[in-house]
């Protein structure tokens, strides 16, 4: 068959059942991405004879003799297509994984379609941006600032990889070809709890192309946790690479490597596994009962599946409730949701010519992954290299080692390169989720609204394995309580094993779950007392000078490096007051309401966290920056360059950057808990300062001027009256044996606090239960904005994710613990049509602890969104909906209105 892809013509015979997406990727058109592989996300959009199509749904044979255009073919005469340029100008991407498909779709729209993007973009999902910047791009809004020497910090500069992203040239994890590649597939358990009695591999081994089959008998019998924390003691060692005990539907049973994906899949289906089915338990409260089936029997200690319990009290809540004029008590719950980063988990491993093992992967923590792999396989750290190139979204889901281990195993055993790509279904059934938490909140207050006692009891469902269970539980009992000054606080938390898919890290990390509970409860209390939602918060929220404390006494390393919670609340109140009014009424069946919620986040995690950076001046007078932290759409490479450029009084374009590579960058404990700016960013600032001093010191010496009259200016050094180019200085220095380089580390100790306030106005249809958002306003206190456009983008993305969590998303399970809706089609993340354009405000603060005045920003913005929405729905309907999500069918149930 004859094919024309862009300007390339060739003959090829696709496999009979092959779709166009893989046909194109196998021929090097890596701009064609896989997001869902089922026609729902649009990441694989290409044109067939100028008609946009989802290439994952097009049989490859049907594309023969037609003009196929991929993102790589959109450039004309070396010039970007206007839509590519528009996406670049509006920086309408974060991780960039959806961008190629988004551009291919947007570039095909006529004016009518552009006027109705809700319809036109319903087949394109973006999990990062919240769609605002995409809308701006399509409407030709230019947002990026110019790159001016000495003015890098605080400007909306472009992502250094932006051009590669919009042209499809950016290489994500699987966007490379390699000779002799084997493909790995995994057989997964259909049972929630079982013992594997026997695995017969004879039929599977007979499938042509199958190279190796691995079961629990073939792996190191070494327990570990898939959660990637440097301090391995914060997670339980409860997991084997492959186990003979199955604890959830979707757990790995066996891994097969074969010459083709098809052969590996077929062999998986032909494996004969004899299971002994065990009783299972799915509900954490049931699992805590003495006679519940036990998941992990450690030393015969029957601890009723409670992996960890955390308790604390300051003051006396008993006394506090006695003092109270009003007491509110209610149980609130959050649902199980998935990250749905557009790039699924994926990994390629190979033995290099250097004899070392190379692991190219999609991770938020390459260094921790490396140490875990060394531990499990007994490898020497010098013989293994773990790195990322571009990562298509993380949100906490990639703070987990759930792909690399099997690939490494297979490469070690076969000596060949091995690739493994999770299917979208596997993302749902077998990767991690947010911990569902049920929180009983009891609040006591005086008549004037002053809190006298806060007590919460949290039960967290960690699923079959306990990664992140203790840390998320601690976070759940931390900041959401800390943000209220109250002399008497108490919290009890339990993280419980059940036969469910394991939970893990997810933006908001435990804190989001109890912020939902407490912020709803504060609202309910205000209603009980008859005071406003703003007043009750102003009366009780933490103030500078307050002792920062949740329920544990003792010294902490948290401080008010800055404080802008008051500004945030004022901004949101003003925004809502501007536009909220009865004039919006949509008819008699619609009722309107307003809701707010606030959240606090410590900038950086409480456990040990560190990050390193290295910088060099290069012979051409430009700089090279190597930093260990990961970029997965969080914008850290952009802000790190800006921080360095700012310190070096340079332009960001003169700073090349590499990140997240155990061979080429300094050590980093992982990018999560907002460490990208506050820890890695600080390392970059310290390194850039050291290099600046190094250069000036040499320049001063070289020109025999005082260092105090020397300064950097773009690609020159000014030494008094003299101006020397960095090229000349480098040459001179090198002749004298001087090294223009520096390396520094930063620690996450002395941490500041960041704040977010979200406010919404909604209309609720009393009959259909539909919720329409009339207004969404967010204020963030994240210190100085290194890159305002990027900060706004992070917040909008978090808001969108919060909307999804609050209003749409829910993983649904059958009675056997199997997920009912493991596809993007049935687990709906927000589309363009689902997300309002939010107003985003920033408090005017400058943090004294963070790099160049900045604080944590990527994580916390999600926390107040769901409770603000729930509070608005309560305000509108007079009914409290304490469980997420607030889908119309669940709203209607309680409205019980009969037309």
């Amino acid at each position, binding site marked *: 068959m004859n094919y024309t892809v862009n300007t390339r013509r060739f003959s090829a015979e696709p*496999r*009979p*059942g*092959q*779709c166009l997406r893989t046909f194109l990727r196998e021929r090097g058109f890596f701009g064609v991405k896989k997001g869902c*592989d*089922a*026609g*729902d996300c*649009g990441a694989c*959009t290409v044109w*067939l004879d100028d*008609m*946009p*199509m*989802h290439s*994952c*749904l*097009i*049989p490859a*044979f049907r594309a023969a003799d037609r003009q196929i255009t991929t993102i790589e073919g959109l450039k004309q005469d070396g010039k970007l297509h206007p839509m590519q340029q528009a996406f670049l100008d509006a920086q309408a991407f974060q991780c960039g994984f959806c961008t190629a498909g988004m551009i291919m*779709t947007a570039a095909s729209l006529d004016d009518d*379609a552009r006027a109705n993007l809700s*319809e*036109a*973009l*319903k*087949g*394109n999902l973006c999990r990062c941006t919240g769609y605002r910047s995409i809308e701006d791009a399509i409407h030709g809004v230019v947002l990026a600032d110019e790159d001016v020497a000495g003015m890098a910090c605080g400007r909306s500069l472009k992502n250094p990889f932006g051009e590669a992203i919009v042209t499809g040239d950016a290489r994500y994890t699987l966007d490379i070809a390699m000779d002799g590649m084997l493909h790995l597939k995994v057989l997964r358990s259909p049972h929630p709890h079982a013992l594997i009695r026997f695995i017969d591999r004879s039929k599977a081994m007979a499938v042509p192309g199958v190279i190796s089959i691995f079961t629990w008998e073939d792996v190191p019998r070494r327990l570990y946790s898939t959660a990637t924390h440097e301090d391995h003691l914060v997670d339980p060692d409860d997991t084997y690479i492959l186990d003979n005990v199955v604890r959830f539907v979707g757990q790995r049973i066996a891994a097969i490597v074969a010459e*083709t*994906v*098809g052969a590996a*899949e*077929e062999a998986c*289906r032909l494996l004969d596994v004899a299971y002994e089915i065990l009783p299972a338990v799915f509900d954490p409260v049931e699992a805590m009962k003495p006679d519940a089936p036990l998941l992990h029997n450690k030393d015969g200690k029957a601890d009723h599946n409670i992996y960890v319990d955390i308790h604390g009290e300051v003051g006396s809540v008993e006394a506090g409730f006695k003092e109270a004029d009003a007491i509110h008590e209610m149980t609130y719950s959050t649902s199980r949701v998935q990250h749905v980063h557009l790039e699924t988990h994926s990994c390629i491993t190979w033995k290099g010519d250097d004899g070392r093992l190379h692991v190219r992967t999609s991770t938020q923590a390459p260094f921790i992954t490396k140490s875990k792999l060394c531990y499990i396989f007994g490898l020497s750290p010098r013989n293994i290299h773990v790195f990322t190139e571009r990562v298509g979204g993380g949100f906490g889901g990639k703070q987990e080692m759930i792909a690399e281990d099997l690939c490494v195993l297979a490469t070690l055993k076969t000596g060949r390169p091995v690739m493994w790509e999770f*299917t979208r279904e596997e993302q749902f059934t077998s990767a991690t989720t947010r911990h569902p938490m049920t929180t009983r909140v009891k609040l006591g207050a005086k008549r004037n609204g002053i809190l006298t006692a806060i007590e919460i009891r949290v039960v967290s469902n960690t699923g079959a394995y306990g990664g992140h269970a203790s840390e998320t539980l601690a976070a759940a009992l931390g900041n959401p309580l800390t943000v209220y000054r109250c002399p008497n606080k108490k919290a009890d938390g339990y993280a419980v094993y059940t036969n469910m898919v394991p939970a893990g890290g997810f933006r908001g990390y435990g804190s989001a779950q109890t912020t939902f509970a407490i912020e709803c409860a504060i609202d309910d209390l205000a209603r009980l007392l008859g005071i406003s939602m703003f007043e009750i918060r102003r009366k009780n929220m933490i103030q500078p000078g307050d002792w920062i404390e949740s329920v544990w006494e003792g010294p902490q390393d948290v401080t008010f490096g800055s404080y802008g919670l008051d500004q945030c609340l004022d901004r949101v109140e003003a925004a809502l007051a501007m536009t909220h009014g009865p004039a919006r009424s949509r008819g008699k069946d619609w009722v309107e309401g307003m809701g707010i919620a606030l959240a606090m986040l410590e900038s950086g995690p409480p456990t040990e966290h560190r990050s390193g950076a290295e910088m060099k001046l290069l012979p051409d007078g430009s700089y090279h920056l190597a930093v260990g932290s990961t970029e997965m759409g969080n914008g850290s490479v952009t802000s790190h360059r800006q921080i360095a450029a700012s310190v070096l009084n340079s332009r960001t374009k003169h700073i090349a950057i590499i990140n997240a590579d155990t061979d080429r960058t300094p050590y980093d404990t992982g990018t999560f808990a907002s460490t990208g700016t506050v820890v890695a960013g600080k390392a970059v600032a310290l390194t850039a300062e050291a290099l600046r001093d190094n250069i000036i010191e040499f320049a001063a010496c070289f020109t025999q001027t005082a260092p105090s009259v020397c300064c950097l200016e773009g690609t020159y050094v000014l030494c008094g009256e003299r101006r020397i180019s960095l090229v000349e200085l480098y040459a001179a220095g090198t002749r004298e044996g001087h090294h223009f380089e520096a390396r520094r580390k930063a620690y996450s100790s002395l941490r500041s606090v960041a704040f977010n306030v979200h406010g919404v106005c909604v209309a609720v249809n009393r*009959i*259909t*239960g*539909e919720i329409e958002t009339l207004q969404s306003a967010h204020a963030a206190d994240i210190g100085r904005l290194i890159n305002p456009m990027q900060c706004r983008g992070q917040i909008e993305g978090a808001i969108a994710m919060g909307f999804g969590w609050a*209003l*749409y998303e*829910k993983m*649904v399970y059958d009675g056997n613990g199997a997920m*009912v*809706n493991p*596809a993007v*089609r*049935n*687990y*709906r993340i927000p*589309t363009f*049509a*689902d997300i309002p354009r939010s107003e985003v405000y920033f408090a005017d603060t400058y943090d004294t602890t963070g790099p160049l005045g900045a604080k944590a920003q990527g994580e916390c913005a999600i926390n107040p969104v769901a409770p603000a929405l729930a509070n608005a729905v309560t305000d509108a309907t007079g009914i409290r909906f304490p469980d997420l999500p607030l*889908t*119309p*069918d669940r709203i*209607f*149930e309680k409205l019980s209105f009969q*037309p």
Partner: protein
Amino acid sequence: MDLNTVKEVKRPESADVVIWRNGYAWLAGGTWLFSEPQLAIDTLIDLETLHWPALHASEDGLDIAATCRIIELDRFVAPLQWTAAPLLCECCRSLLASFKIWNTATVGGNICMSLPAGAMISLTVALEGIYTLWPREAAPRQILAADFVSGNHANVLQPGELLRNIHLPTAALTRRFAFRRSSLTHLGRSAVLLIGTQNPREGDLLITVTAATTRPVQLRFERVPSADELRHHIDAAIPDALYWDDVHGTPAYRRHLTYYYAEQIRSELGQKGARA
């Protein structure tokens, strides 16, 4: 996605030459087939090579080939007297699929999938369509659209039997109509989709309930009923077990909206000339 179990694609020039066996599947647009693993399928039989003309309008009505792409239906310009023709676009827009899918997905494919939310089913049942089916080893047969779908993802097709054509009669296309749809998300999969039609001269009422129920349900009234009559008819026609239960809406919700929208349609079409 790749269908790795598929070992062969047949591209016949005529459907008659196909001797059916298990493991075969007709390939229309492929937008569902390629969206999930199809482990039971080893051979795809391409319908595209049959080159059935997509649309044919005549005095009798509209004939839609099963292989007519959604985009072609959406762009069809109907004669002015076909007052119900806007339903064509309404129903295309009721699909969860984006316009890009419309470029390949077919009307027949949506119908043969027989999902409760299949908007081409809503359309063709509401417009009193007649399907022409081609059994493998018998003469073509015709069936009322309303009788085709028998449950979620189930229909009357025998193994290998093809849906060839959908005929929408002029009498149905010239009726007034009212349309109501609801989804748990914006532009999401339909939880409830109701269409009412009426011959303005006769003042009758035909209400078609889809998405809410596992199969389409039609309520036919010679005169516009009272609100009570309508409720009783729905009570009788739709037992609780017929309301569809999945992640796109609870049965109670679908039931609730069925009554609510049916009453709105009754009220709308009860007024003379509202949308004729």
